[in-house]
């Protein structure tokens, strides 16, 4: 459903990505791994339109794009989370999730200003969907709490919730488990697998924890210094010499 072809991205003289191609199949969990600075987040940022690659194309479904922009990506059904949580800190969990449904709501400005019937009905209808996600992620008890007051692990969960609220076809997760303890990681893994299972969402995730990656992903792309050095099932990647060298270093 998604394929990136020959993507190259440079910031001035620094080549962040060089000629990267890979594809993501419908309903798949696809991991992108690599050492720090390998270009993983840059890759996600290209798909979601935050960065514009100098060369290459991105194909979503049947449409091919020279470059995306974040708004277009959202409209195409791509939702994402960020490496450093990017929630709306002053707003409650509920409101954060409701912004995720922004694109699904279409009452006019005037109706909203006056809070007329159709607008109220729309609010209620979407609130129901959001409550479903809140149940799903087991964050009922913090529904009305401003996000800034929540512990880190829960914030990560809320961010996932906001992405889910958009009912995305493709979910991009940038290090969903960074900085979590074992228990929180297990919870997050379960949520990711459930999302994939229940909602049929295709997922692309970046993660450093190899155990997690090997456990939950169907296929893995390995990047190093902006180049693709491996691509395949977890087992393939584990036994790939280039990948082992990149992670463990090469003896001189």
């Amino acid at each position, binding site marked *: 459903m998604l394929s990136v072809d020959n993507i190259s991205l440079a910031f001035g003289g620094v080549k962040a990505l060089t000629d990267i191609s890979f594809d993501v199949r419908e309903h798949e969990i696809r991991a992108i791994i690599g050492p720090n600075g390998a270009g993983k987040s840059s890759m996600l940022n290209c798909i979601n339109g935050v960065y514009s690659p100098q060369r290459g194309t991105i194909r979503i479904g049947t449409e091919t794009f020279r470059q995306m922009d974040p708004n277009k990506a*959202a*409209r195409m059904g791509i939702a994402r989370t960020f490496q450093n949580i990017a929630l709306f800190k*002053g707003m409650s969990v509920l*409101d954060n999730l*409701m912004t995720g449904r922004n694109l699904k709501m279409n009452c006019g400005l005037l109706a*909203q200003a006056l809070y007329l019937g159709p607008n109220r009905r729309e609010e209620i209808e979407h609130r129901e969907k959001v409550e479903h996600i809140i149940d799903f992620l087991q964050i009922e008890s913090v529904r009305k709490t401003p996000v800034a007051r929540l512990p880190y692990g829960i914030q990560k969960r809320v961010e996932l919730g906001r992405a889910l609220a958009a009912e995305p076809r493709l979910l991009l997760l940038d290090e969903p488990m960074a900085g979590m303890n074992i228990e929180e990681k297990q919870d997050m893994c379960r949520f990711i697998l459930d999302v994939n299972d229940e909602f049929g969402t295709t997922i692309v995730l970046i993660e450093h924890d190899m155990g997690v990656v090997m456990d939950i992903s169907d296929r893995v792309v390995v990047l190093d210094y902006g180049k693709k050095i491996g691509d395949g099932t977890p087992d393939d990647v584990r036994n790939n010499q280039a990948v082992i060298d990149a992670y463990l270093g090469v003896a001189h």
Partner: protein
Amino acid sequence: MQFFFEVLIGGLLAGVMYSLVALGFVLIYKASGVFNFAQGAMVFFAALTFVGLQEKTGLPFWIVLALTLAVMILLGVLTERIVLRPLVNQPQITLFMATIGLSFLLEGLSQLIWGSDVRRLDLGLQDEPIQVVMDRFGILISKFDLAAAAVAGVLVGVLAVFFNKTRIGRALRAVADDHQAALAVGIPLQQIWSIVWSVAGFVALVAGLLWGARNGVQFALTFVALKALPVLILGGFESILGAIVGGLIIGAAEKLAEVYLGPLVGGGIEGWFAYMLALLFLLVRPEGLFGEKRIDRV
């Protein structure tokens, strides 16, 4: 006691006028985290455009009002297109500097187009006491002030619901919090900014008409914005309710201080009392009465 109430009510009603101006600041601060230095200039520009159009065209009140509103919306959209769009993702201080520029531009532009004479603005509201209240309680309450308060009340009610209960309202708050994240969930930043500047323009128009009718439409209207500052500090920069409560407190406090403390220090308190109150308030509760308390994790 009667006198006390008269001063108090007069102060509260005057405070509502401050609130109206403060409201414009709050709107833009909520939606972009930027203190809009140009709000005072917008008030002046709106009032002058209204009076200018009225003189030039001689059309009835409501038509001129609609025309001026159209001009303010156009101004909002243009501000987004020309000033804000190139500055997306820039630090807030940059945006703040841009609004200073905008403020000088507006001040110059409005006087270039309409001239710099002091104009009279007649809304058909007399600044005279309400007879019934006068007879019954012996308290002087200005009809004009009461009407202004009613207008402000309605405006605040609508805006509060709009911000807290609707999609666009939520999108506005989201944009203020995090541009990047807002874009990622598909909130069109440009459209949101156009809307909020247009709404701020509308609020400036209402404030401009009421202040203009009271003091005459003149350059001094831009200084009205300065009176909104202590209101904002008291109420909190993000809170619509805060703008109202802050305005009421400032209005009442400065009138009461003038009357009761004034004689002790030789009078002339009204001019600076609000600012001193704001200073004291900063020491106790820097985020304001209704502002959002920021908790940073270390």
